[in-house]
């Protein structure tokens, strides 16, 4: 096991930021913490990187205890915080050299590990970090987090605020890093990125709702789910919510995802109900649940 988290609690005053969190990440695994702002993802990262003490519980990273062995952990992990935290006034190359020196290594020694990523920003190596675009900052931050060849890499929302093209490139980079035997713990608020992880933990309000592979999480969805479309989205949502047998009604792009309380759901009956409420161009079809559907079902009050 590369990361073992056992019954961790952390509160800030009245707020339970982490409420009994336990999970394990195998060596070489890409593990995703999926959840919205306020789920507790950053607090967990800070505890695992020894920057914050848990109130209760224990955790080990790369075999070391996060409270007792903090110096060992700091040598063996790479951490990319959510907020860009490199030196804005140093150039690209100076930042990288700085981090290499701090960890008692050189760029040359570990260049093979970061080459893929660093070549993309190398043409700008004399530019100050503060003057880089979002995508380039992200690549520099990742290079700096890797330059001491960590065993475990912590990435806190690396793709937040990044456009789809850069997001895709970033995930491709992570997949390649994984092949180099680095364990990666990554957090994201985007459910569509969950599918790219080996295992995911769905988090909300300091709790883990479920842990499994993305495929299994979707498979565990408890009900048949239907996508419903009609000519007027607002009217459709209002009408579905007024349908006596509805279990859940969630807009999903151009459709609404609908589940029914009954086992013997009859789409013809719903069709008639919608038509009676002045809806037209009605379309009802069973569809496959997504990770977001599962998340909402688990988080449903």
């Amino acid at each position, binding site marked *: 096991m590369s990361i073992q988290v056992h019954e961790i609690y952390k509160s800030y005053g009245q707020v339970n930021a982490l409420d009994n969190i336990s999970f394990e990440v195998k060596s070489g695994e890409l593990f995703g913490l999926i959840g919205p*702002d306020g789920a507790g993802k950053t607090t967990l990262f800070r505890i695992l990187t020894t920057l914050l003490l848990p109130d209760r519980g224990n955790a080990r990273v790369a075999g070391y205890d996060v409270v007792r062995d903090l110096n060992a952990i700091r040598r063996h992990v790479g951490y990319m915080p959510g907020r860009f935290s490199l030196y804005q006034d140093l150039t690209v190359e100076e930042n990288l050299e700085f981090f290499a020196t701090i960890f008692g290594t050189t760029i040359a020694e570990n260049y093979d590990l970061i080459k893929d990523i660093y070549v993309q920003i190398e043409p700008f190596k004399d530019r100050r970090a503060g003057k880089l675009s979002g995508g380039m900052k992200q690549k520099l931050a990742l290079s700096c987090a890797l330059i001491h060849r960590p065993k475990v890499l912590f990435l806190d929302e690396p793709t*937040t605020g990044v*456009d*789809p*093209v850069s997001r895709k490139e970033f995930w491709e980079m992570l997949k390649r890093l994984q092949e180099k035997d680095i364990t990666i713990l990554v957090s994201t608020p985007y459910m*569509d990125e969950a599918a790219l992880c080996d295992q995911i933990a769905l988090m909300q309000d300091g709790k883990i709702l479920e842990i499994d592979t993305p495929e299994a999480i979707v498979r565990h969805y408890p009900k048949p789910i239907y996508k419903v479309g009609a000519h007027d989205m607002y*009217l459709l949502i209002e009408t579905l919510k007024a349908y006596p047998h509805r279990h859940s009604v969630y807009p999903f*792009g151009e459709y609404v995802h609908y589940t029914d309380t009954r086992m013997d759901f009859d789409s013809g009956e719903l069709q008639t109900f919608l038509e009676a409420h002045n809806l037209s161009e009605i379309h009802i079809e069973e569809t496959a649940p997504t990770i977001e559907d599962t998340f909402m079902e688990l*988080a449903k009050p």
Partner: protein
Amino acid sequence: MKNENAITVSELTKTFGTFTAVNAISFEVKKGEIFGFLGANGAGKTTAMKMLIGILKPSSGQATVAGFDVHTESEAIKRNIGYMSQKFALYDDLTVRENITFFGGIYGLSRKRIQEKSKQLIEDLGLGAVGKSLVGSLPLGWKQKLAFSVAMLHDPQIVFLDEPTGGVDPITRRQFWEMIYKAAHAGTTLFVTTHYMDEAEYCNRVSIMVNGKIEALDTPKNLKQHFEAATMNDVFLKLARG
């Protein structure tokens, strides 16, 4: 009805020195439409939107917003639109009520009207228990819903939303979109800039900017069909990667 368009843009251009940030874009947004305005970082979205909300002078081209000219009537535009951004929307150090009163004052509403609006809004959003709490202490999802309502305080014809639901939990995000559908249903035009493709899927039509130009404009359904893509994310990747 002669003018059913809330926004009309023709050859709108903005240059900074030798750099053309927005390159002769043209499009129309219908009244009551939810229009998605997409593009990668640096594609020119923000510059284009700044011109439309009257805070940046175009270099050339024409645009009317809520019936007013962006060159000559930018003050009238500001009075007739609402604006909400994920990054800044409300003052964290003011209470819910104070924020409503402050923005109501900015929009020129009478004391009486602010009181009415304040009561109604707090009731609609179920914020009665936290009316006197600082906005900074509220969960992000509540803040977003409050911010949207505050952007609508003065009954604007058009509301501009800048990445409104990034980071919000999936259930609250849907409550937010239901508010948007409700506003559109009542005739308000919604102009949404985002680079989150799942937000794009909720829009009636979306435009995609690449390097200062609009490279595609249609309903999400038609765009997916045309680009033979399963999701708007795939459409975007095909366009932006060329």
